[in-house]
């Protein structure tokens, strides 16, 4: 099999995203979990670039890694969770059952997704290169999807108000 850069990059990114996700759920300290999640977001943003979705890849870095994960790290530092005894996680039959259940879920998902689309798409669409641009996204967002766009602003308003109400209450 001839060596192809795209194939190599895909497997590198996919394997590192899976490894970082596994590391994330197995770390004891929430700080290292958050850092592995940032690594996972970074590799997924690389996968978006392979799918020629440049704008999505950029806002993945901006929003997920730049803002949401900062908020997570912030809260971990804010809550001052250095007391290890609060995080003692014991292994029990419950955990083994949940692990088996998630493996079962993986079997179902992979069966449906992997075999359901074998041979359906010969190659990436020719238009894919243009789809990732901000122009295409904007053109669609301000015509066909203008109502969801306005609703998104209500969502953001609700987020500000909700967070202020929940977090501000007699904090001093």
């Amino acid at each position: 099999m001839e060596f192809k850069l795209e194939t190599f990059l895909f497997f590198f990114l996919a394997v590192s995203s899976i490894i970082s996700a596994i590391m994330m759920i197995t770390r004891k300290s929430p700080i290292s979990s958050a850092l592995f999640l940032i690594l996972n977001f970074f590799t997924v943003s690389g996968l978006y670039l392979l799918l020629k979705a440049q704008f999505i890849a950029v806002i993945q870095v901006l929003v997920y890694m730049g803002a949401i994960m900062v908020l997570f790290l912030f809260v971990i530092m804010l809550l001052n969770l250095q007391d290890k005894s609060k995080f003692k996680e014991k292994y029990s039959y419950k955990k083994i059952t949940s692990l088996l259940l998630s493996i079962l879920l993986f079997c179902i998902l992979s069966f449906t997704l992997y075999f359901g689309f074998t041979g359906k798409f010969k190659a990436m669409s020719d238009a894919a290169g243009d789809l990732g641009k901000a122009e295409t996204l904007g053109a669609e967002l301000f015509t066909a999807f203008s109502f969801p766009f306005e609703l998104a602003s209500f969502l953001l308003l609700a987020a500000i108000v909700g967070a202020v109400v929940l977090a501000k209450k007699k904090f001093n």
Partner: protein
Amino acid sequence: MIDINYYLLTSAVLFSIGVAGVLIRRNAIVIFMCIELMLNSINLTLVAFSAFLGSISGQIFVFIVMTVAAAEAAVGLAIVIALFRNKESVNIDEINILKW
């Protein structure tokens, strides 16, 4: 040329890891992170379909999902802070007042 199957398989693996994390971990903040991981794997599926079908709608969905994720993180972490203020803990096994 990478087939769409491989992207979908990666996304399925990430989603299952997220589900396993939600079920296994007991720290509320880590559970939130696992939810973000699941949202992210769904985004990967949507972008893959968008690229292979040649339709922009998938990327618009990703846009909206990212907005929802940001709003969810803001409110959810505020709830975690409020819980911590009352119970001095973020272990969800200790937050069981509503449990019968």
